[in-house]
């Protein structure tokens, strides 16, 4: 086992791309809370969130060409892997469960991160609310409701190509408003 303490982003990304076990473990230690929280925000359930994180990471681990250095930061790559896994589970669940069943579920007790600042929490929604309607609506349906671009186009009665460009523009504005992208 390589001692990875103090490893920077670049060596971690190199190790991750080379499929080194220490890099996978270190990546989880660094980003585990972000990954879990991301899954939890989509699924609203601790067990499902844990399964989504585990299964997404296991799939990346089994696949030898999922990540390359060209992809950029390991943190971003894993966050989107886990989020897409969670969204996929939510879509499958919503096909299985009726809405009433979900509403009847007991609220869970949950540990929250120490930096849990209510103002910080609302930054995303506040930034979202400042987007023009034409960008906010498709982005909200995609990001918060996990709908596909085909469903969004159908719901908003807007062509697919327009949905795609509005989501792309809205996402750029939102990321810039929240402090820009970090690599």
């Amino acid at each position, binding site marked *: 086992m390589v001692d990875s303490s103090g490893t920077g982003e670049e060596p971690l990304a190199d190790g991750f791309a080379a499929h080194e076990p220490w890099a996978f473990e270190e990546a989880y230690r660094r980003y585990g809370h972000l990954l879990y929280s991301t899954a939890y925000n989509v699924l609203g359930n601790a067990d499902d969130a844990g399964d989504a994180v585990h299964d997404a990471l296991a799939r990346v681990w089994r696949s030898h060409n999922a990540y390359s250095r060209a992809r950029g930061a390991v943190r971003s790559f894993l966050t989107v892997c886990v989020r897409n896994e969670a969204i996929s589970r939510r879509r499958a669940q919503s096909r299985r469960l009726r809405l009433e069943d979900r509403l009847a579920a007991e609220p869970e007790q949950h540990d929250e991160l120490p930096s849990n600042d209510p103002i910080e929490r609302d930054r995303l929604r506040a930034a979202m609310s400042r987007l023009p309607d034409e960008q906010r609506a498709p982005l909200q349906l995609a990001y918060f409701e996990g709908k596909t671009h085909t469903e969004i186009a159908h719901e908003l009665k807007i062509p697919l190509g327009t949905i795609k460009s509005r989501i792309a523009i809205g996402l750029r504005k939102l990321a810039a408003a929240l402090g*820009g992208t970090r690599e």
Partner: protein
Amino acid sequence: MSELGNFEHIGDAADLYAVGALDDFEQAAIDKHVAGCDECARLLGAAEARVTVLAEADARHKAPVQLERRVVSTVRARPSRPRAFIPAVAAALIIGLLPSAYFWQQNQAMHAEMAAQGDAMTRVASMPHRSVAFTDMTGGAARVMYSPDGTWYVIFIRGATRALSVAWMHDGQRTMLGTATPHGDAAMLFLPKSHRMDQLALLDGEQVVAEAQLAY
């Protein structure tokens, strides 16, 4: 050209992928393309970084301790296969066994396949299309995404273990359209066509293994 740059590859579909607005089949098709295309990997990485800014702004749940144990045990239980010998084997093949013409041919085939994948990505991500699952597919799942006017078809197979032929079934006949060859556990075939096909079949050799009924 799209506003994001090269529209021959995944283009704005990078943002749809990152924000979670593609279905499983579309995601898998992009994964497959990006694994062999650094340009699109960079585009997708940039979109993923933007979505991560959103995810970080909304991160407030602490991961349970047992999840780390679970992840670590999965990694340790299934160690990475040794890869160091792969370049050595490749070098031996290149130098000693295979003529360069073979590699030129392979390279051309790879470029043609990537161009077809890029074309398929563009259509699936940006044009109105219909999507139908193949029925009776055992040990995997397959779907055809196609334009309502029948001008293009993308067949995507997950869990593919061997190449499957795609045929148009019509008037008691079978017209072979092409072969979907797996890379990893996924196979894709892009078919630009000029007519509507209402019944497609997947064949393993001569045996029909799945069928799809298309509506227009």
